[in-house]
């Protein structure tokens, strides 16, 4: 099983490398642009995105009461994902073709509505959590020690 997966993987990698070489060989501009997108992803993620996410999660854990950790972190995560999906629709430095029926919604409004729904849901969950906690006898409401990304 392992050997089969490994061999299949290597074969796909070799074929991909051949296709990529063919692609890069045809044009210097395409080669460096392609390479920039290939290397840029992991670089930006590891150096910028992950530390920011970790830092934000750490701060939220420190600043928020325990009942609010999970809903606020979940809402923040959903907001970030929605924002990522909205970027290409909202920010287009080189323009987009005018095609009737395509990318013609009000994406700022859409993003606003989706984010609002997420945070209203988080608020409801947080309030219910708090209410449940206050209903429980004190010895059962003990929380775990906070962690930097416990959601």
């Amino acid at each position: 099983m392992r050997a089969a997966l490994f061999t299949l993987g290597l074969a796909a990698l070799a074929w991909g490398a051949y296709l990529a070489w063919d692609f890069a060989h045809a044009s210097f501009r395409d080669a460096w642009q392609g390479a920039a997108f290939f290397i840029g992803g992991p670089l930006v993620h590891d150096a910028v995105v992950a530390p920011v996410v970790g830092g934000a999660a750490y701060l939220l854990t420190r600043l928020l009461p325990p009942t609010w950790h999970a809903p606020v972190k979940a809402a923040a995560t959903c907001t970030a994902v929605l924002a990522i999906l909205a970027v290409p629709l909202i920010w287009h430095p080189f323009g987009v073709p005018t095609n009737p029926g395509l990318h013609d919604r009000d994406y700022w409004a859409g993003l606003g509505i989706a984010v609002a729904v997420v945070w209203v849901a988080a608020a409801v969950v947080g309030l219910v959590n708090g209410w449940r906690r206050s209903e429980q006898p004190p010895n059962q409401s003990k929380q775990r020690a906070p962690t930097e990304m416990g959601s």
Partner: protein
Amino acid sequence: MTRFASPAHDERVTSRVGRWLGIAFAVCFLTGLLSHGIQHPPSWFTWPSSPVWLYRVTQGLHVISGIAAIPLLLAKLWSVYPKLFERPLVRSALHALERGSILVLSGAAFFELITGLFNVAQNYLWGFYFPTAHYAVAWIAIGSVLVHVAVKLPVIRRALAPPGVDADRRRFLRTTWLATGVAVVATAGVTVPLLRRVSVLAWRSTVDLPVNRTAAAAAIEVPADWHLEVVDGEDVHRFTLDQLNALPQATEELPIACVEGWSASAVWGGVRVAELLRQCGIAPGVDVRVSSLEKSGLYSTSTLPGTHTGDRRTLLALRVADQPLTPDHGYPCRVIAPTRPGVLQTKWVTRLEVL
């Protein structure tokens, strides 16, 4: 010294997120391969003409699994982030190879998701031809996924054994599934009719039948003496628009399903391609090259395979929604065949040639 105390970094979390990320990538790869095969068919490849919604579903799955992979990839990378700081950086040649393969995996995964996401928005941050690059890197991505799974298989098996309950681990996983669900619901309305109004970040509108290339963009000028040529070797048959309208007319409800994942169903009216071929003494079921008034460009011609010319639902459409085609929808006539990518539903048709 960096400390990562969260249970999010536990191998049981990594494996569970990884399993779904692997499934998303596999679906993306296979549906992408199908779409590539339909557009560049090798001699052994055939694509059916039934059910009519097949390409709509496979290409819809392609973009939806790609969208789902975005939060899954970020969660997976967060889960393994502490490994980036492991020291020594390299323990052995094999270890170096493993770390290198993960860089390739991560680079390919980001490349596919970023270029795919911007491409569906027709937002071209790059100068290169997207399909070639996206297709080449897809092989690198799936290859490095397979190698990675092979290398990690013992860890995966151990980690996927029924876990002891841990509230924090479970919370991280639930947040991941929730964010993935939110991403899918926010976009899947591009192809899922029920979600059309709910998906606020869908790249197609709520009402119109979208147009991916306007007559103006394709520089189309329909000559006053326009006619359709049907060519079979030395035989050339010509039809004016009035003559096409005088032939037996048919109506079919067929979706336009774009490579960019959106789809829209419409009621098309016109002449069945099979009927048109018969009128010219040609037996349906032959491959036909369709040429457009568009002079240049990758999609100025397409090959309609025999499977589709033989299918009675394939139309040379003259109308949509009971109205004559507008220039943007392909006036004077266009091909509309079941379960084909939109780019192959050639518009502004001027010639059909039996191959």
